[in-house]
């Protein structure tokens, strides 16, 4: 195993930790954080495997920077939506029609 593979496995781990939390937690804030952590996991897989025998492939780095900006945009919108949901229903959860 190489260090690159080790990090790729950590990325897979982060993806599934996030997925578990997304399914299990009720409150919207940890669920939004869970999606962010899943994203970090995917980004780690992309960048870790970019370390090749003859050097580092810069294309995944650029993709991940794009991904980070997309993630912060989505998070900003999600947090605002969460506030509106909390305002309208009195709780920052989606409990009224069951969980996913």
């Amino acid at each position, binding site marked *: 195993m190489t260090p690159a593979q080790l990090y790729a496995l950590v990325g897979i781990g982060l*993806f599934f930790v996030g*997925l578990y939390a*997304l399914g299990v937690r009720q409150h*919207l804030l940890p*669920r*939004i954080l869970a*999606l962010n952590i*899943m*994203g970090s*996991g*995917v980004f780690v*897989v*992309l960048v870790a*495997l*970019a370390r090749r025998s003859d050097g580092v492939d810069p*294309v*995944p780095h650029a*993709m991940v920077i*794009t*991904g980070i900006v*997309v993630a912060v*945009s*989505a998070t900003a*919108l*999600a947090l605002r*939506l*969460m506030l*509106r*949901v909390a305002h*309208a*229903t009195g709780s920052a959860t*989606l409990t*009224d*029609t069951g969980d*996913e």
Partner: protein
Amino acid sequence: MSGVSLLVQPVWLILLPLVGSIMVFLLASRRAAVGVAVVAGNLALVAGSIGRLGITGPWQHSVGGWGAPLGIDLYLDGLSATMLAMTALVSLGISAYSAAYFSAAAARHFWPLWLLLLTAMNALFLSRDLFNLYVTLELVGIAAVALTAMRGQREALVAAMRYLLTTLLGSMSYLLGVALLYHSTGSVDMVLVGEAPIPASVAAAAFALMAVGLLLKTALFPFHFWLPGAHSSASAPVSAALSALVVKVGFYILLRLWIEVFPALGDGVAWLLGILGGVAVLWGSLQAILQQRAKMLVAYSTVAQLGYFFLALPLVAAGGSRVWGAIVLLVIAHALAKAAMFMAAGNLLAFAGHDRIRDLDRVVQRMPLTAAALGLAGVSIMGLPPSGGFSGKWLLLQASLEQGNWPIALVLLLGGVLAAVYVFKLLEHIFTSGTPLGEPRAVARTMEWAPLMLAIGAIVLGFLATTTLDFLIIGEPFVPGRRDDY
């Protein structure tokens, strides 16, 4: 480069609605007028692209001049042009409706978001780059959620939140699949990835991740949990856009992946998706029959109709491009009919102040156009001749009988019967006669004409089925591999 060829570049389909969105955002007034003009311009650009496609065949545009695999290629063939045309037509209907539907305060928020959604869908249908598709998928998803939430009511907010979590989860799953493919093949161009050797286990994992991500966005049973809430609680034109166009986007990418990237998928996968599609048809139809509110009924009908696209997948291996063509016909027919139905349901809601089906008596006298739109759209949804829905289902029925695939034929017939039950449940109350009770609110004329025109479109598609099928195969979108005739 001559002026004409400069104008029919596919990038205009992305730039026009984008600039339009920024314009209506900065404008103080006349947002609806500018918005409708931009969407009409978009339709003209699509028509120009179709004309060029018919003359010179498929073509590509290498953004930045680099070309795949280093750069990103836009690509236009019969399939992408058909999707663009469907989007442009339905968008124009929705825009005309929206111009009358929204108050000035709501229009301020609606038009910039709506034009960005159009930008995103156009960009998506033109892209052949797996990572670029991820970015466009996020654009479509975020725009769709923002439009759903815009209405501000409690149900809409909760549904939008659930939709957002689902669509972001779908994007993450899709992107992880892209990561696996990129590192196995050294490219994110769909055709190059498809031609590279991929270890079987990696291909299986990548397909599973991308397919689950896209199915979440397309709401195939059992991933449909978010759809009825979101599609029924949004405002009427947004519901129409979500049900008619946005859910198709995930299916379109899946179709491209199926053909270009994973041509070696076994029968097992086709059957798995086919069974889920069949369950979706039956379950969605039964739920639609049980609903008490018009918009919920129409939303569950979407769950059912989406099922047909997947139900047909087991026929693809032996049926080839004829079956794909039939599926795309169903996609278009559903887009036209469902946009019409949601807008007509919006009219019922605006007219009566509620959409409880059993209290919707005597609508036909006051809104004959809306009632006609519901009836015609219902014909296509049920799959009765002549309509786009009929042509698509008829072709699928033929293919399944030729292949001796009786379970699929059975579900096709049963789905049609169930659809008839829920469509007539909706129509029966509207077409009751008698004197109208109370003084209902008036509905603007464009809000009646827009759904009627789209519903007529769904019927006309039945007569244009052969033309559409011939156009669809320009550039052989249903055969894998790079074709160098552009």
